[in-house]
Structure formats: structure tokens, C-alpha cells
């Protein structure tokens, strides 16, 4: 009787302590963990042309390179206003946007004059779908973006690629998707062998609804090494992808958001052991149970540290609005399994949040995301997780937007961390950039 009594209290104990929460609790800042001491805000792009959707990356020779989009406002000749790929200009306000590039040799203190990447006038897409850049080992830049399909449909878009031409400019962009009006959300990454891997969400098989994951490889001269090939299906139609490599490129990791038949959206990791030629079955990162029939376009972010541990952050609403927020998990077994999710920052209002992470040379993870401030304005926040996996810095507000700040991009080289994001206020947008020295 006594024994049963004690056991029942133990049962209550375990229910109380462990049953209350299946997740790891939101980490509080660790005592002594420092905030990041960012420099002043700077702007990128032509402020009169509504720059937006920046992406940052360091080239092998140490230049910080930024790509973004901005308005194309040259007056358009009367009578020639057709399609979404034009040889002239366009009347403003116009959906025509240019893909722009600039670089900095001093970590963002000063920038080169921006260059337009698209030779023809195109409606270069922004939001989570903005241009991305990658470099070959000899520092040649390759930029990928998407434009709406011939009827102007952004959801039936085309993947465009331009590369540095060796003469100080860029080649004319070419379309990569072999089936017209089928690609969206392209990304590009340099493989350890110097070739480039491109991935996008594809709808050439237009049903059932969830989309397919297509890849293509090109060499350092831009020559196609493969045709477009499908490696997965069941993807959310509008959520960014992530790629990482291991074992000299033999192992390729990808993350995306899956949608099942019941519209439940969980994030998964896909792993290839043959350099991206084929992928194993997707591994669920967390069973968030987020069931939503609408279009909350915000994809996961993937990083890998020196130990080979994989780090993923993502946004989910979970099973209730109270669960919604930015979450983090890691895998220490090469993506076979993931630790229970950890809440990084709870949603402050019903809002789709955008997130990114980068992993430092000392295995510190830097997270950036958007969330609403007390005035219901979207702002950019950051926090870090030390290599020990326990020491969390305080949540830090990085932006001070009078409108909405969102979609932060991160770049990290040695101890230099850069962040850029889009701020919108009414009809205007701008790209804001900040820099910080880390690891001190």
C-alpha cells in the first residue's frame, strides 16, 4: 500500500515536470552571455528605387557581396508593354524590378557602385524569393533569381542565371528550368568540388498540389553538368530551401517545408550520399502539426558546424496560436534524428515570421528573425547559441523600423558578422545593413 502510494506520487511528479511540455523550454539568456554590439545602420541600393530583399555572401577572396532587387523606372515606349521580359523599360509604378549587385572590401564600410544583373527588363522577384549569389573558388559570381511566367503568374515562374563574364560585367541571364513557367524559389550553393548546385521548387508536374524539388548542377564556366532532375516531392509551394555539404560534397543536406494531404506543414531534412544525385527519405525535424490551408511563406534555415552537427531554425504556428514562433533543433548524427525543438522566440501576434541562421568558425550559431514589437511593427531580432549548446544570449532587437522590417540575411567571415534586411513603410522600401565584430 505504502509502495503504491509512493509510486503514484512519482507518477504525478513526472507528469508535472515532464508532461507539461514536450518541447525544450524557451531558453533564457545565460548569465554573462553578451549581446552583439552592432555598428550603425547603413543603406544599400538606390533609395529612390525601393531596394528590397537583400542577400549577403562572402566571396573566397574576402569581399562581402550583396544582391538585392530595386525598381526599374525607365519610361517604357508606348505600345510595347507586353509580357514580363522586355527589352526596354517600363512605366512606374511597374512590377519591373532589377537584380542588383555590389561588393565591399572592408566588411561593409564602403561599397562598389551597384551593377544591374539583368540585361533585359524583368520583374525580378523579391520577398523570400529574392536573388541569391554563390562563388566559384576563383571568385566568379553566379546569381540566380526568378521572374513570373509569360502570363505574369509569379507562381508559375522561371529560374534565371547570370554569371560574371570576366570583363567586369555579367553575362545575359539564361533560363534554367527546361519546362517553361514551372520554377520558383531558386537557391545556389558552391559544392566543395567547385561546381555549383542549384535547387528550386518546381510545378512542371502540376498536381497533386504540393510541389517537387528540382536540382541542376553547373560547372565553374556555367556549363550544365546535368539536366533538371527531381529529387523530392510534397514541398510547400512558397517556402525557401536550404542546402549544406559534408564529406567534400559527397553528402548533401537540404531542408524544406513539407505539406501532407491534410495540409499539415512540417519541416524536413533530405540527405544525399552521392553528391546530390539522389536523396533518401525525408527526415522530419519536428512534428509541429501545423495544419494550415493558406500560404504562410516562410522556409527553414540550415547550418553545419565543424563537428558535423546540423542546426536548423524555422517558423511554425504549431498546433495552436500560442505555440507559434521561431524554433531551433540540432542533429548530432548526420541528420538521422533531431533533438526536441527549442523555442527561440514566441510569436507576439498572428504573423508569419522569417528566419535565418549562420554558424561561426567557433561553432557559435547566430539566429536572426522577424517578430512584432510592442507597436505591432515587424522588427529584426537576433540571439546566439554558443558551441556548448547551452549558452544563449539575450534576445536583441536589431532594427528600429517605423514601418516593418523583415527577411534578414546574414553573412559571416572570421569574426565579421553582417546582417541586412528589408524595411517597408507604405509604398516605400529600403535595404538596411549593419555589421558587428563577434567572438570577442
Amino acid at each position, binding site marked *: 500500500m505504502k509502495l503504491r502510494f509512493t509510486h503514484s506520487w512519482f507518477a504525478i511528479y513526472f507528469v508535472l515536470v515532464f508532461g507539461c511540455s514536450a518541447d525544450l523550454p524557451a531558453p533564457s539568456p545565460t548569465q554573462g552571455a553578451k549581446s552583439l554590439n552592432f555598428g550603425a545602420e547603413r543603406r544599400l541600393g538606390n533609395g529612390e528605387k525601393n531596394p528590397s530583399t537583400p542577400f549577403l555572401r562572402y566571396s573566397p577572396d574576402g569581399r562581402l557581396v550583396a544582391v538585392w532587387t530595386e525598381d526599374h523606372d525607365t519610361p517604357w515606349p508606348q505600345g510595347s508593354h507586353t509580357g514580363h521580359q522586355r527589352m526596354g523599360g517600363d512605366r512606374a509604378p511597374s512590377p519591373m524590378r532589377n537584380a542588383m549587385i555590389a561588393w565591399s572590401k572592408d566588411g561593409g564600410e564602403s561599397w562598389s557602385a551597384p551593377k544591374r544583373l539583368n540585361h533585359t527588363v524583368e520583374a525580378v522577384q523579391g520577398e523570400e524569393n529574392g536573388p541569391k549569389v554563390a562563388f566559384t573558388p576563383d571568385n566568379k559570381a553566379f546569381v540566380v533569381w526568378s521572374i513570373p511566367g509569360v502570363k505574369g503568374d509569379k507562381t508559375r515562374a522561371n529560374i534565371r542565371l547570370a554569371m560574371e563574364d570576366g570583363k567586369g560585367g555579367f553575362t545575359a541571364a539564361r533560363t534554367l528550368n527546361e519546362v517553361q513557367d514551372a520554377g520558383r524559389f531558386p537557391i545556389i550553393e558552391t559544392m566543395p568540388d567547385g561546381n555549383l548546385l542549384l535547387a528550386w521548387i518546381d510545378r512542371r508536374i502540376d498536381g497533386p498540389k504540393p510541389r517537387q524539388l528540382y536540382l541542376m548542377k553547373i560547372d565553374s564556366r556555367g556549363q550544365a553538368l546535368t539536366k533538371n532532375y527531381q529529387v523530392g516531392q510534397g514541398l510547400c509551394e512558397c517556402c525557401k530551401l536550404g542546402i549544406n555539404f559534408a564529406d567534400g560534397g559527397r553528402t548533401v543536406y537540404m531542408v524544406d517545408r513539407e505539406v501532407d494531404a491534410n495540409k499539415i506543414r512540417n519541416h524536413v531534412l533530405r540527405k544525399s550520399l552521392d553528391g546530390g544525385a539522389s536523396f533518401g527519405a525525408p527526415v522530419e525535424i519536428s512534428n509541429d502539426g501545423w495544419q494550415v490551408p493558406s*500560404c504562410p*511563406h516562410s522556409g527553414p534555415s540550415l547550418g553545419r558546424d565543424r563537428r558535423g552537427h546540423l542546426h536548423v531554425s524555422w517558423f511554425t504556428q504549431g498546433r495552436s496560436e500560442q505555440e507559434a514562433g521561431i524554433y531551433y533543433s540540432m542533429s548530432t548524427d548526420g541528420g538521422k534524428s533531431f533533438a526536441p525543438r527549442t523555442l527561440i522566440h*514566441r510569436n507576439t501576434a498572428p504573423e508569419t515570421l522569417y528566419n535565418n541562421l549562420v554558424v561561426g568558425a567557433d561553432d557559435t550559431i547566430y539566429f536572426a528573425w522577424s517578430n512584432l514589437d510592442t507597436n505591432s511593427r515587424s522588427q529584426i531580432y537576433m540571439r546566439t547559441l554558443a558551441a556548448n549548446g547551452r549558452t544563449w544570449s539575450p534576445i536583441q532587437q536589431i532594427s528600429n523600423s517605423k514601418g516593418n522590417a523583415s527577411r534578414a540575411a546574414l553573412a559571416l567571415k572570421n569574426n565579421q558578422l553582417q546582417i541586412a534586411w528589408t524595411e517597408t513603410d507604405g509604398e516605400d522600401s529600403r535595404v538596411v545593413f549593419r555589421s558587428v565584430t563577434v567572438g570577442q
Partner: protein
Amino acid sequence: MKKARRKQALTHGQLRAFGLLTASVVLALALHAHSVWAQHVHPAPPSSAPVVGTAAIAFDLKTLDGKAAGLESFRGKPLVINFFASWCDPCRDEMPLINELSAKAAGNYQVLGIAVEDSRAAVSEYAKEAKLVFPVALDLNSTVKRAYRIFGPPATFFIDRQGIIRDIVIGPITSERAKEAMKRLGVAK
């Protein structure tokens, strides 16, 4: 006397279990407090989601051609509000149905599109491309989207002539669901 007897009745094991329970409650409370404190930057989201049977939240927007498109300006006739975006796949799927709803209104009700997380240029282009026959307002700062607690478009609200929400459809609407909602709105189709 009774108290003394009860005290005697508590065995050593029971006392230990009681101590353990107390410790577990303290630990659980500490964990909860820790979780709440960890979110100190912001409180949990308020639970003021618009629900059927309550008054629609007022807003003040402008249409693509600059006309006022506040909730008040639609009062007196039932109103269907469709939140959409030009980049949103399911929005594009349901748009022919929303367009049809508007085309068949015949002055009995009104349809308003509210474009969220989108630019004037992109929405104007889309309105032309999709041949939209109803007014479209721009929620450029996401204030209405947030007030109506929409994580992602599409979402459709059916508001009666008194400004009361009669139905809400989150995600793409089907023609059957639209018929049902219009019936709740008191509009026979």
C-alpha cells in the same frame, strides 16, 4: 485529538512522498516561470481573434485607384472581404470564384479584395492579369491583416449589413463553402 491521530497515521514513506510532491510542484512552477520569463521581450499573443457573431474590426484603406475603402464605407450592404496576395498560389486558385461572387452581386452585396504583403505595382499587374471585377485595397503596412489575425492569405470574411461577421473561411474557398457562407450572410445565390 483527531488531528493528532491523523498525524500519527502518516507514515514515513508518505511524508517522503509529500515532500517529493511539493518539490515537483515547485520545480514545475519554476519551469513555467522560467519559460514565461524567457519570453520577457514580448508577451504571448493576445486572444482577440475575430470570430463569427462579433463586429468586424474597422479599417481604413485605399483602393488601387485611390478611393476610400474603410469598413464604414461598405456599411448598409453585406460585404465579402477576401485577403489575398499576388504571389500566393491558393489565392490564385480561388480568385475565379471570388470574381464570380462579385460579378453576381447585382447590388445585393459587395466584394472587397485586400492585398497583403504586396506592392501596388504587383497587385495592379495581378488585377489586370486576373481581370478582377471588384475593388482592391492595399494593406501596405499589414495593419488590417494583423487586426484580422491572418497568418497567411487567402482568408475570406463574410460581414452582414450591420457589420457583424457571419462566416470566416481560412484558406482557399470552394464554391460549396461560398454558397454556405452566402446563405449565412442572408444572401440567396
